[in-house]
């Protein structure tokens, strides 16, 4: 076995914001993990689940291994498989009248991320695990409960691997009604603690937008206020998320606009970012709302 996965050393970037809301969420997740239960951060797209998962993983001070769910994934994409072979041929003719040949061929096993994490005690961050087919995640059942990883016999170093005591798992997922999301196994969801992550409070959204876009806090406040009003006006209150605030603010910062009233460029940017997520029958109302909010913010 001569091929192993790379590992991630996590560092908090300058753009990461830790408000009391995020700190409370992080502390809750860390306490669940320390109690021995993996955590699943479930919520809509763009609320910061992956960043939060990485932040939680960084609290343990151990390297991490990041995996993303994929419909094409099989169990071998999690644990590893046979990869290449080694052929050895020996010809012995030391004694002139005797010719001896010996040929052997062995296949190589390459561990993948889950096996590496279980073996060395790293933190596994499995992003969007419900996008993988349920049968691909079967191997996690024994890892999370019995703390043993069952591997194929083809692995030369043993087919039962005891999970390292420092191994931890953090999952993220979208709600099941999202496109491309599979129904996860009841047995797997039963083994983890699910924390619903929704949209952040206004203070957190303004802080995140300001950190990511480097715009002034006042302008970020106007952008966040606009996005929150659009979110409230929609029937589906999951989108737009803080990602939309960051998008609008970064574009404003790049173009040098300051979000004043009557600014067509700012209005058009808001329409481009916010309107595609709105169903057709609500677009007129949302467009009017954006115009009214821009005027009222001046």
């Amino acid at each position, binding site marked *: 076995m001569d091929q*192993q996965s790379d590992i991630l050393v996590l560092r*908090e970037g300058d753009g990461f914001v830790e408000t009391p809301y995020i700190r409370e969420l992080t502390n809750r997740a860390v306490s669940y993990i320390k109690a021995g239960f993996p955590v699943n951060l479930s919520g809509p797209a763009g609320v910061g689940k992956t960043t939060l998962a990485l932040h939680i993983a960084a609290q343990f001070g151990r390297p991490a291994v*990041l995996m993303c769910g994929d419909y094409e994934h099989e169990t071998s994409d999690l644990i590893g498989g046979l990869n290449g072979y080694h052929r050895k041929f020996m010809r012995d003719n*030391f004694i002139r009248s005797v010719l001896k040949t010996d040929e052997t061929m062995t296949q190589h096993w390459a561990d993948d991320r889950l096996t590496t994490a279980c073996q060395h005690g790293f933190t596994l961050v499995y992003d969007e695990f419900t996008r993988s087919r349920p049968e691909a995640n079967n191997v996690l059942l024994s890892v999370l409960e019995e703390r043993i990883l069952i591997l194929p016999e083809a692995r030369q170093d043993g087919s039962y691997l005891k999970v390292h005591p420092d191994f931890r798992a953090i999952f993220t997922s979208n709600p099941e009604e999202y496109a491309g999301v599979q129904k996860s196994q009841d047995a797997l969801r039963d083994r983890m603690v699910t924390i619903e992550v929704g949209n952040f409070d206004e203070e957190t959204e303004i802080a995140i937008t300001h950190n990511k876009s480097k715009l002034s806090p006042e302008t970020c406040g106007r952008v966040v206020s606009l996005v929150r009003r659009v979110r409230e006006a929609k029937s589906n209150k999951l989108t737009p998320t803080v990602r939309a605030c960051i998008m609008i603010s970064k574009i404003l910062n790049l173009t040098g606009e300051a979000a004043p009233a009557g600014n067509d460029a700012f209005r058009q940017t808001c329409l481009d970012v916010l309107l595609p997520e709105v169903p057709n029958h609500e677009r007129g109302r949302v467009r009017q709302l954006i115009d009214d909010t821009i005027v009222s913010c001046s």
Partner: protein
Amino acid sequence: MESEALTKIRTMRQIKSSLDVAGRPRVKTTNGLSKAPAQSESADHPKDGLTMQVLAKEKARTAAYENSVKKSRQRLLSSRDRLAAIISRNLALTELRHDLQRSRYQKVEVTCSPAPAAQKETLAQSGLRQVDLEY
């Protein structure tokens, strides 16, 4: 009058032994002078292919034999080194044991360094490549 001294007697000094003859250019005998060149060729300079092949094989075999002798001599020397290291370690341990026994009987403090702590495999030793990720 002709001298009657025995001047033509050849003693052992004059007669060359086979040792004297060996290594020097071959002496041409009377019979050899009249032989044709092909006949007078000796086995030291064979020209036919089969003999050359046999000679080459023998040379190769001798070289292989000498190699194996050299290898086994190296192995012998290395095993002697290992044995010497074991012996010196055992001597040092015996000496330490005697010191400890003496200290126990005579109640004398003997300082000795503790065994080195078992090192946990570091990430560098595990051979995994690390990638920095800023979130």
